[in-house]
């Protein structure tokens, strides 16, 4: 159960990271608003997206080792990307809504994993 929760946490972090990268690339209103704050804001947002992806890999690596964690993180990223890009124009509310909720959900999954056996 613990492994499933950690993997869910990693998948949600991957989703959040990929969605943030897409938001910057596609010029989503929220990303534009955040990006308007400072000259380096877009670069910072990209860095944050990379950070979330790295974090996803990190939580798995802590649980299963770098090779196992890295492979799962890559498979997860491929899945998230394959689902996100075609679904975003078809069901934008659901896709972007989940993107906003993904990080808190990942935190919840991470906390639950601490208590799970």
């Amino acid at each position, binding site marked *: 159960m613990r*492994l*499933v929760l950690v*993997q*869910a946490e990693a*998948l949600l972090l991957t989703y959040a990271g990929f969605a943030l990268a*897409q938001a910057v*690339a*596609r010029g989503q209103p929220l990303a534009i608003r955040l990006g308007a704050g400072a000259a380096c804001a877009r670069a910072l947002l990209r860095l944050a997206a990379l950070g979330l992806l790295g974090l996803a890999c990190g939580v798995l690596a802590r649980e*299963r*080792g770098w*090779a*196992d964690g890295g*492979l*799962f993180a*890559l*498979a*997860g990223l*491929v*899945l998230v*990307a*394959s*689902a996100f*890009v*075609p679904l*975003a*124009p*078809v069901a934008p509310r659901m896709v972007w809504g989940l993107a906003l909720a993904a990080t808190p959900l990942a935190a919840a999954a991470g906390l639950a994993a601490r208590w799970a056996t």
Partner: protein
Amino acid sequence: MKLSRHAFTRFWDVHGWAGVATALVLHVMVFAGAFALFRDELSSWQERAPRTAPAQPAPLAPLVDRALGGAQPRELSLALPGHGAPYLEVHWPGGGGDWTETHVDLATGAVAPPTSQLAVLLYWLHFLYHPRASWGMYVAGLLAVALLLALVTGVLIHIKDLARQLHQFRPGKTVKVLWSDLHKVLGVMGLPFQLMIAFTGAVLGLAGVLLALLSGPALGGDQAAASAALWGGGRDARPSGRPGRALDVDRLIARAQAAVPGFQPRFLGLRHIGDAAATATVWGELPGRLFARGEVVLGAVDGRLLSESLTRAPTPGVAIGRWVVGLHYALYGGLVTRVVYALLAAATCLTILSGNWIWLTRREGRAASAGNRLLAKLTIGVGGGVVPATAALFWANRLAPASARQAAEAWTFFGVWALVALLFLARASSRGGWVGLLRASAVAFAAVPLLSSVGTDAHLFNLGRHGRAEVLGVELGLVLLGLALLVTAALVRRRGQRAAAPVARLALGGPGPVGEKA
């Protein structure tokens, strides 16, 4: 990077022809592969009689003797209990080269032949294998090479605008643009997965051929040495001609576990039983180490350790083989990884089929030609037909009596598939085309738990009583698959109503197939 016009045209042609020539079989292989990932769970689910493991592990040797019933085979293979199967599986060669298989209940000691072949049918379909036509896996290997070729040429023809494919998907445009975008987005995003399954699939499928070819120049034609280099030692040990009595299976398993601490055995194979040089190969895994699956080879008479490939890879071939098998069958990260692979397999199926639709729409002017008409009909009949055929296979498992279940499953699966193919060959818009096909499959998959609840003692709705996680997993998975197919049917229907071109309407299930009256 931009290709010259000549190179672009050549790569385009190779991509198109390699894709369209192999698409339907590859689609079926990938579709079956999604089920093959859950072979252990399906193997347990398919046996309807509930079996429960005893609280204390029972010695296996008396159970093996019971299963053999006095037979004294020279070879013996055991699939050990665990991994969702609370029974011992015993295989030995009978007359005529066929192997006999039987199951022994751990709690009662009752011996019974397997009643279902659902899991193994889907597993073999994944690499086109059958014991009487093992060359099918070489064909599967060649098809994997064709997929690899299509992927590489696909990357080359889109290399100039690869970055754009990372986010370009326009569902509001024409159906032709929609398929093109879908094919490219899923192809580019899924490229690491598709390259991995194509490469590892090619290696797995063609390993036997490579072994035969390379044993000549590299090892002087010594097939045994070549096999040992690729798969590990001990497989081809020769009998001595002197009699010897093998240790019982429990002691052999204990010796293997003592030789490699933490080793979890899954299979045991005995060769040259009755000979002093008999060997026992205990195959299993070492938890906590990536792809640490391998074998401990023992002398079956004295229990001496001959070799082991778990803590160290004896040859580069074994090390590579371990990664190839591990990556291909998702032997890391547990159940969630296999679910991720299954979803990626579904996306790969969509990539492959959308390639066929692009081929057809690009030849809209020549759509009435016999070849394109046939391709359109085969894409829906064969490519789409495998979905309801698989649902029918699950129904056959739950409805057929135990004595006739294995035959009923095979006949139902291939019969329904052939019927759907013939139906769409005769009239491609039959029953609403893709929409009807997907809806019927969705209902059939989602109804499997209901069938289970009528005919079996262990089903989704009495989980508290039997507690079998694999029943919950398989039946819940089938319900979710049904829901996903329903949503897909709704999306296809919405697009089909807006499609103007006849080929587009045909592929999406609307009226007006190519070369036919609406």
